[in-house]
């Protein structure tokens, strides 16, 4: 595990995460330069202008051009990060949805304190879910009479995805607000009850990671941990096969 996680950013295995990391790094260099600059000035000012015998303070403040230029530079640099990085990255993450036919679409339904993962199965069609059908055996209320539901796969806390393929996750919640976080993918999105919110991402490496809940959702918030496996396409296909319900089982 240590190879993934440490005292700074965790490993990034998503296609879009590199840009986010770059932005975070630029920000921190920028912050450090400004802060150290201020600090050097601060220390010099405190030492040079400490009260001494007969030292007299200046009544007329000299007006300096430099601070104004620094402020202008700060503002311009912020504008650059805003337009150059933040606008496009966020737009891509939330709104540049790949074609559903070329990606894996997964529904994630959050509840206290678990992640229900819902795959459409081989037919690519999600069966209908209804709140009134929800029970312990059927946590997302999948309508078994819907033909599209026959080959649907549901898991609890186990999100498997293929590598190098666009993923669309449709997020919703049964009860309270949760936040679906995949730290290694630089993905985080609140799940709002009453809404379905899509996010898209693509993994560029395989491995076993975690889903975290980022929004306080009750006393079990801390243990709302899911497993997140990025597998090769063939492993993924095999797993889908193994999970697909046999027709006779699904008719009960």
């Amino acid at each position: 595990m240590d190879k993934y996680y440490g005292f700074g950013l965790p490993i990034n295995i998503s296609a879009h995460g590199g840009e986010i990391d770059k932005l975070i790094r630029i920000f921190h260099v920028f912050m450090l330069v400004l802060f150290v600059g201020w600090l050097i000035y601060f220390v010099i000012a405190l030492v040079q202008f400490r009260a001494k015998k007969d030292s007299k303070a200046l009544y007329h403040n000299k007006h300096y051009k430099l601070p104004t230029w620094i402020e202008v530079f700060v503002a311009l640099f912020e504008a650059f990060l805003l337009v150059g990085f933040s606008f496009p990255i966020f737009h891509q993450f939330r709104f540049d949805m790949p074609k559903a036919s070329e990606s894996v679409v997964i529904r994630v339904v959050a509840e206290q304190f678990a992640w229900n993962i819902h795959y459409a199965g081989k037919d690519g069609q999600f069966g209908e879910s209804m709140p009134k059908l929800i029970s312990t055996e059927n946590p997302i209320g999948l309508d078994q009479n819907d033909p599209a539901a026959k080959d649907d796969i549901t898991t609890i806390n186990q999100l498997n995805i293929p590598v190098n393929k666009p993923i669309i996750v449709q997020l919703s919640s049964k009860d309270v607000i949760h936040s679906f976080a995949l730290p290694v993918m630089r993905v985080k999105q609140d799940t709002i009850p009453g809404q379905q919110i899509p996010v898209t991402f693509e993994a560029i490496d395989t491995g076993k990671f975690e889903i975290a809940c980022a929004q306080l959702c009750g006393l079990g918030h801390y243990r709302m941990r899911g497993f997140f496996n990025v597998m090769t396409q063939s492993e993924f296909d095999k797993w889908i096969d193994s999970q697909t319900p046999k027709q006779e089982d699904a008719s009960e």
Partner: protein
Amino acid sequence: MSKEHSPSFWKKYIFSVDHKIIGIQYGITAMIFLLIGFALVSVMRWQLAFPGQPLPLFGVLFGMSNAPGGIILPEFYNQLGAMHGTIMIFLGVVPLGVGAFGNYLVPLQIGAPDMAFPKLNMMSYWVYLTGGIVMLASFFFPQGAAQSGWTSYPPLSNIAPVGQTVWLIGMVFLITSSLLGSVNFIVTIVQLRADGLTFSRLPFFVWAQFITSFLLLLAFPPLEAAGILQLMDRLAGSSFFMPSGLVVSGEALQISGGGNPLLWQHLFWFLAHPEVYVLILPAMGIVAEIIANNTRKPLYGYKNMVGAALFLGFMSFIVWAHHMYLVGMGTTMSNFFQITTMIISIPSVILLTCLLLSLWGGSIRFNTPMCFALAFLPMFAIGGLTGLPLGLTASDIHLHDTYYVIGHFHYVVAPGTLFALMAGTYFWFPKITGRQMSEVLGKIHFWASFILINIVFMPMFSMGLAGVSRRLWNPTEYAHAQPTQVLNVVVSYAAWGLAIAQLPFIFNLIWSTFKGKQVDTNPWKATTLEWATPTPPPHGNFEREPVVLRGPYEYSVPGQREDYLPQNAEQ
């Protein structure tokens, strides 16, 4: 005036309408609440450092339902977290910055005999105290106090135990108190300024309080409305914040449905972002006064500072949704709020720059209040700078709701605002008591606090970058939180150390009130009007109405015998 009648002890010190007594009442009450808030988080820090282990010594205090055998339960942990935030902000820092310093100093600094509405002022304090008692009492209700975070997001808060209802009632009291106070401040500052005290001659502290009052007046009503709506949802069966089809623990909720949980977030943050500036502006006012006084020179760019503070106040109303980037808003919305968020950083930088440049050319005295005021500058800078990556949606995706956020806003509020309030306490103590607080104890308090508070909050940035979510009862559940767990231990020891480091301050405060070195009415050789009153100021404040002849920071005026020229002094 004081000689005309001698009111009873109760009238004079308890149910007083004198702004100074009310200010002191606010100050003492708020400091006690700060200690309570600190105590709550000290208990949380045990759980974070040593998850699931029984809390020694104090563990037995909380009873079987909260901490059986001293092991802090997750639901109790969530109560501690929610109440820590609520108490620190609404019962600690704001009442100290506005209720205490504002009440005590604004009438004195503008040369007024009292606030415009003394009875309203008294009511504001008693409503605040009631709200505080209600909040504390909520711990004793079945299943304890509010436990949905200080932000109380529904639906979680709507389905929470009865403590949440008590929290909402407490909030209604606290908001009402702030509204009463803010109206009073605005009228006082507009109407009761001494002759000659034009707006351009107001001390920056008064400007800060003036702007703060407008923020309180305009931002709090939406939250009061939201609080009432949530009360209706909980008590009257409405569904303002509850969508249809909710299923909690396998049971369909029997509610009318059709509401939207995001409505609460908009209403809440419409208050809670300006609230940040309600915390920070009085702090900046205090720092500006102390820096001008102890550099012995006029502030750099007084007019720019006032302009920046006004702009900051205005902008603070149109940045609120940057707390909500990840709720699924569209790009038009998020782009708008990103732009306003970057814009609001500019007046903050201007204010900080002016304060920093004010040091240049000074003759700096390093007394305890000045040390705290100076420390405010780099600490607020860290708090402000770390807000930048949170202010852009792209970097916020990774950092949202992690410890990075906690580090960021604590730098603004704890070593930022609270240090400024400490500075103010040391600075104006001689005006209130006629005695000075011990410098030795003050310096011990300052250095211990300064070092420890950085050890408390700096590691949180590392944890946040590592992706550790906030509000986790046991972070070690997650593999990605395990490398940084060692930091939790360090932070906890530092936090407990920080608690101990406040003992010299508490002792100093009490001891100096009775035994401190006696000083004259203007021990810091300051220029503003509060130092022109007798010490302690009598009821009615000034012996005769002051006439203001000049600006607030006439220090080191060339050709003068003294290095300060009070605002009302005949030349």
